[in-house]
C-alpha cells in the first residue's frame, strides 16, 4: 500500500507538485493523467526516492521511504521517462547488471529468462542495446523494472514513441502485470488510462484535480457521449431530425459534401444510447447511414469539464 500525504516539491519558486495526497491499495492499476508539466514525473521520482519531497511524506506499507530507503526501493520497480539503459551493453549484460544492482535473490538465469519471455526480448538478448529499436529499448527498460519481482511498478510515460501495434501489446502487458503487482503509470493520453487502469488520478499544475475509478470517470467527465455520423440526405432536414431526438445536446455539421452525404457530430447526454433510435428515424425517411464512429474525448475536454465541475463545487477539489 502506498500512502502519500500532502506531498510538495518546489523547484526554485515554482511548486512542481503542490500538496498532493492519495492512497493506492495493493493490486490497483492507477493511471496518472495530466498534460506536460503537470507534475507527474516529479511525483513518480519522489515515490521512487530519486528526488526528496520539499514537504510531505510517502509511506510504503506504513514505513516512510526515507526511514528505510534500501528496503522500500526493493519493493519498487521504476521505468523513468527515458529508459536508463547502457548503450554499450548487450541486453543480457544489462539485465544481469540490474539483477546484481538490485541485490536480487532469485536465480539469475531463471529469473531473467522468465522476464525476457514476458516482455518478448529473448530473441535480442545478445544484441547491443544501442542497436535496438525504440520499442525494444522500452521493453528492455520494463524488463529492468520487473527484475526482483517488485510489488510496485512505476512506469513514467511508457508508451511515448511506440508504434500503435506496440502500444496495444504494451497495454496487454500492463494488464497482465496488474494481476500480480500494483502498477502506477503516467500518460497524457486519455484513452490509454481508460484502456488499462482501474483508477485515474488527474493532475494539473501540480495538484490532483480528480481521483476516480475508471468506470465512474465517464460520468464525471460527462461529455464522453459523442459520435460522428455520415448520413446521405438533405443537410437541413437531417440536422433537424437529429436535434429532435430526445437528449441530443448539439448537432454540428462541417458542411463538407460527399455525394449527397454530410458528416455530423452529435453530442448527447444521459446513459441511453440514442443510436438505435436515430437509425430507426432515419430508416423511416429513407436516409441511410453511411458511416458512424465514436469520437474520443480528448484530455482537453476532460480538463474543461473538470475545471467546470470544480468551479461548480465552489473551488478546486484537491
Amino acid at each position, binding site marked *: 500500500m502506498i500512502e502519500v500525504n500532502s506531498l510538495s*516539491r*518546489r*523547484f526554485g519558486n515554482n511548486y512542481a507538485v503542490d500538496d498532493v495526497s492519495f492512497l493506492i491499495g495493493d493490486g490497483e492499476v492507477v493511471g496518472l493523467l495530466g498534460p506536460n508539466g503537470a507534475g507527474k514525473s516529479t511525483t513518480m*521520482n519522489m515515490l*521512487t*526516492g*530519486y*528526488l*526528496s519531497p*520539499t514537504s510531505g511524506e510517502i509511506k510504503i506499507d506504513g514505513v516512510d521511504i526515507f526511514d528505510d*530507503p*534500501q*528496503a522500500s*526501493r*526493493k519493493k*519498487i520497480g*521504476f521505468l*523513468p521517462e*527515458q529508459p*536508463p*539503459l*547502457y*548503450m*554499450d*551493453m548487450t541486453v543480457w*549484460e544489462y539485465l544481469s*547488471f*540490474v539483477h*546484481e*544492482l*538490485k*541485490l536480487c535473490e532469485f536465480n539469475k538465469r531463471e529469473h531473467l529468462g522468465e522476464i525476457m519471455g514476458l516482455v518478448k526480448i529473448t530473441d535480442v538478448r545478445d544484441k547491443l542495446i544501442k542497436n535496438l529499436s525504440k520499442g525494444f529499448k522500452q521493453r528492455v527498460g520494463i524488463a*529492468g523494472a520487473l527484475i526482483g519481482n517488485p510489488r510496485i511498478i512505476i512506469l513514467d510515460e511508457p508508451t511515448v514513441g511506440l508504434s500503435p501495434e506496440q502500444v496495444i501489446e504494451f497495454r496487454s502487458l500492463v494488464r497482465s502485470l496488474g494481476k500480480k503487482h500494483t502498477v502506477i503509470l503516467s500518460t497524457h493520453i486519455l484513452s490509454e488510462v481508460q484502456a488499462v487502469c482501474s483508477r485515474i488520478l488527474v493532475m494539473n499544475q501540480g495538484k490532483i484535480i480528480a481521483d476516480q475509478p475508471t468506470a465512474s470517470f465517464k460520468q464525471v467527465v460527462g461529455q464522453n457521449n459523442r459520435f460522428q455520423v455520415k448520413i446521405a440526405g438533405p443537410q437541413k432536414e437531417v440536422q433537424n431530425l437529429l436535434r429532435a431526438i430526445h437528449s441530443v445536446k448539439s448537432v454540428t455539421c462541417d458542411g463538407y459534401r460527399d455525394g449527397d452525404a454530410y458528416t455530423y457530430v452529435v453530442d448527447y447526454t444521459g446513459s441511453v444510447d440514442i443510436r438505435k433510435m436515430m437509425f430507426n428515424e432515419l430508416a423511416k425517411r429513407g436516409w441511410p447511414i453511411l458511416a458512424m464512429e465514436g469520437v474520443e474525448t480528448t484530455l482537453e475536454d476532460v480538463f474543461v469539464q473538470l475545471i467546470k465541475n470544480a468551479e461548480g463545487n465552489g473551488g478546486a477539489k484537491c
Partner: protein
Amino acid sequence: MLAIYKKEMRTYFTTPLGYIFLAVALCVSAFAFALTTYYSSDPTSNTTSYFTIMIFLMVIFLPILTMRSFSEERRTKTDQLLFTSPVSIAGLVIGKFLSALTVFLMYVALSLFNLIPIYANVAQNANEPNATIIIGNIMALILVGSCFIAIGIFASTLTENSAVSMIITIGILIVLLFIYFINMLIDLPVLEVVFEWISIYGRFTSFTYGIFDIASLIYYLSLTGIFLFLSERIFQVRRLG
C-alpha cells in the same frame, strides 16, 4: 557496490578509455624514465626525478579515467536507475572510486617494468638503485593517485559534461600541486604553514627520500576520504534540490 564496481571495470575495458589510459600513460612514463635515468646528461639509477615527473603527468592522465564517472550517468539518465536501486549513494561512489583505482594500480604494476634496466645493469652504474627510495616513491604515487581519483570523481558529480568534469579536475589538481611553489614566493609565516600543510606536492617530497611519513599517509588518505564524502553529499543535496 560490487555490481557497480564490476560494471565500471567492464566499461573501462569494453570502451577504449581504459586502454587509452594504460597505453598513453605507460608510453609517456617509459619515455620519462629513460630521459631521467639512462639518457640524462649524467646517467644515474636515481629514480626520484622520474617519480616526481610521474606525479605531474598524473594530473593529465588520471582525469581521463574519472571524467566520465558520474557525468556520463547523468547525461544518459542512467543515474535514475542507480539512485533508485537499493544500493546506497556511498556504495555507488566507493564502487566507482575502487574501479578507477584498480585501473590505476594496473598502470602502476605495469610501469614497474621500467625499473628492470636499472637492476639489470647495476654494474654499469656508479650507484646502486636504492630499493627503499623506490618503494617509498611507489607508495607515494599510489597515495597521490588515489587523491587525484577522488577529486576526479568529485568533479564528475558536478556536471553532465565529461570534458568540463576533466577540466575542473585538472584545475583543482593544479591548484593543490602549485600551492607548494607559491609557498616559496610568499613571506607570510601563517600562510606558509597552512599552504605547506595542504600542498599535495610538499607531502610527496618526504617519500622521495625514502622516509615513510605517517602524517603524510594520513593526509593523503583523508584527502581521498574528504572528496569521496563531498561527492556523496552533492547527490544528497541535489536530491533535495
